[in-house]
């Protein structure tokens, strides 16, 4: 056991976990225990494995994920709040040789940007969307999201989300799976090692359908927001398992390669 930062394998050693060059070395602005960092790493690993980083264009959304572009060694375009899928449509159509992905939170994707998201998906735009669902608006300070659970307290649902006033949490992956242009739609979670490994595979498949020209690739990642859930990161992970997954079931909801 040592704290020496020797990052190279020594004699007789094999590296079993390393960073990848698509993710730069900047320490993120995300809170301790926030799952954005895991999601970033998964996406970067997939881009690295596919060898497409130097022709990838990231369309960044608005929210905690606005500064995604600070951490990826790829070209980026900032979109207005909710419009990432429309901007990505323009990017992909203008540069058909590029690999294009959006990285959006629940407010950006499923509230203000619902129209742009669904229509880009329905047109079968050859883009990949990574949708981070943490059931809360993080950047603005913990307000209700379209995916906020019934009963969940946020700064704008102080006594808990009430269906009769605010409606229920939107299950976007199920909606996406019903659209003809969507080639792959899956929901994964980032609360455990097993789930993170599964999520990586889903992210890969969501890029594969783009590269194969099959249509819109979509992956929803259930993620923890310890800060706005007022939980420590470990309790937040447990909350995903016990409270979120029953409402947002995991699985592959559409995969044109399998059908």
């Amino acid at each position, binding site marked *: 056991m040592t704290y020496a930062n020797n990052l190279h394998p020594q004699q007789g050693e094999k590296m079993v976990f390393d960073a990848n060059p698509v993710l730069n070395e900047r320490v993120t602005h995300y809170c301790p225990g926030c799952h954005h960092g895991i999601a970033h790493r998964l996406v970067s690993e997939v881009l690295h494995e596919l060898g497409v980083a*130097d*022709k*990838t*264009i990231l*369309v*960044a959304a608005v929210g905690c994920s*606005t500064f995604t*572009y600070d951490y*990826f*060694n*790829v*070209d*980026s*375009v*900032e*979109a*207005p709040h909710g*419009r990432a899928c*429309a*901007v*990505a*449509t*323009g*990017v*992909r*159509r*203008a*540069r058909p040789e*590029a690999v294009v992905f959006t990285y959006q939170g629940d407010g950006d994707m499923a509230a203000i940007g619902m*129209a*742009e998201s669904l*229509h880009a998906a329905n*047109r079968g735009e050859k883009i990949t969307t990574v949708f981070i669902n943490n059931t809360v608006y993080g950047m603005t300070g913990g307000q209700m999201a379209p995916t906020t659970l019934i009963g969940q307290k946020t700064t704008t649902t102080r006594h808990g989300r009430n269906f009769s006033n605010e409606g229920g949490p939107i299950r976007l992956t199920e909606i996406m799976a019903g659209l003809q242009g969507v080639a792959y739609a899956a929901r994964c979670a980032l609360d455990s090692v097993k789930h993170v490994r599964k999520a990586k595979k889903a992210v890969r498949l969501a890029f594969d359908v783009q590269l194969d020209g099959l249509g819109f690739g979509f992956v929803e990642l259930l993620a923890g927001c310890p800060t706005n859930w007022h939980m420590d990161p470990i309790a937040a992970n447990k909350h995903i398992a016990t409270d979120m997954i029953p409402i947002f079931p995991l699985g592959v909801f559409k995969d044109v390669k399998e059908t």
Partner: protein
Amino acid sequence: MNTEQMPDRILVKGNEAVAYGAVDAGLRCYFGYPITPQNEIPEILSELLPEHEGVFVQAESEIGAVNMLLGAGACGIPAMTSSSSCGISLMQEGISYMAGSHVPGIIVNMSRGGPGLGDIGPSQGDYFQAVKGGGHGDHRNLVLAPSTAQECYDFMFKALDLAFTYRNPVMLLGDAIVAQIKEPVRRVPPAGTRTPEYLQSLVEDQRIEGYGARGKNARPRLLKSVYLAEGALAEHNRLLQRKYADMRKEALFDCEDVDDAGLVVVAFGSVGRIARSAVRQLRKAGHRIGLFRPVTLYPFPDEALSALARGRRFLVIEQNIGQMAEDVRLAVNGASPVLWHSVMPGLFIGANELVEPILQALNG
């Protein structure tokens, strides 16, 4: 429809001239949402662009359309959208982001009467929105105001040139008259037209953070409008203002019979054209009247107007409740009287109806 087989002289509406001009100027992508009175533009481009290996997407809304424009422009590809007043209002968010991110693109506004749903008749009520920025923050669009179908055609070349030279949104501000009037158009690139390839090469200019992915540069390129670090937004705005100051040399106008005129009528777009008929009519009758027609509304040709101010009075005629009149007053800056005559939005007027207000201004 092969534009190469079309004759050099065609009889088309302003909207059609915009579409043919855009393709001839090198447009690669169009994104739009239907709205009257500009529908010929998307209708023609939906056929023309794919035939020229271009891209046509009918968006889910004007919000979708302008953000697709942002995406294509961010890649340094000649792209445009078109709409009419209500739709242009929806686009303001995206236009502000384009300006803030130095993204080129063309927005055609064949405006209609407002406020609200208004009507589909002629109106110049979007003047302020077009020339003062329109969206949030201190941003400006370059604004061209065609008065004929020929100018609709020619200005697409100009718009593309300006958009790429300044990496800025360019708006073509027309109205229902310019959009729907059918007249002969010479389908020849205007003198001084630069190739789309050359214009695209301008976006490589590294004075401003570079353009979308090519896979050629080791340094990732980022187009953004958010600057949170202390002082960063101030610096960003200083850069934008320097760019807007540079744009001032692009001011264009059309002048007729002003040298000996005691009264200069100032009017733009279709009203500028109608006013010209009235001015010519009155000239023939011996009145010393001239016409000044701003062709770029931003930058406003204020220096040229200011130079005319001594010994002349001005009459601003516009189809709104007095918008450009404010810019004329600013340009003249008290050096001579600036009068104003309003044509109410939605009305179709003839030159005869302008004769009396012009004479009143001359003699009053």
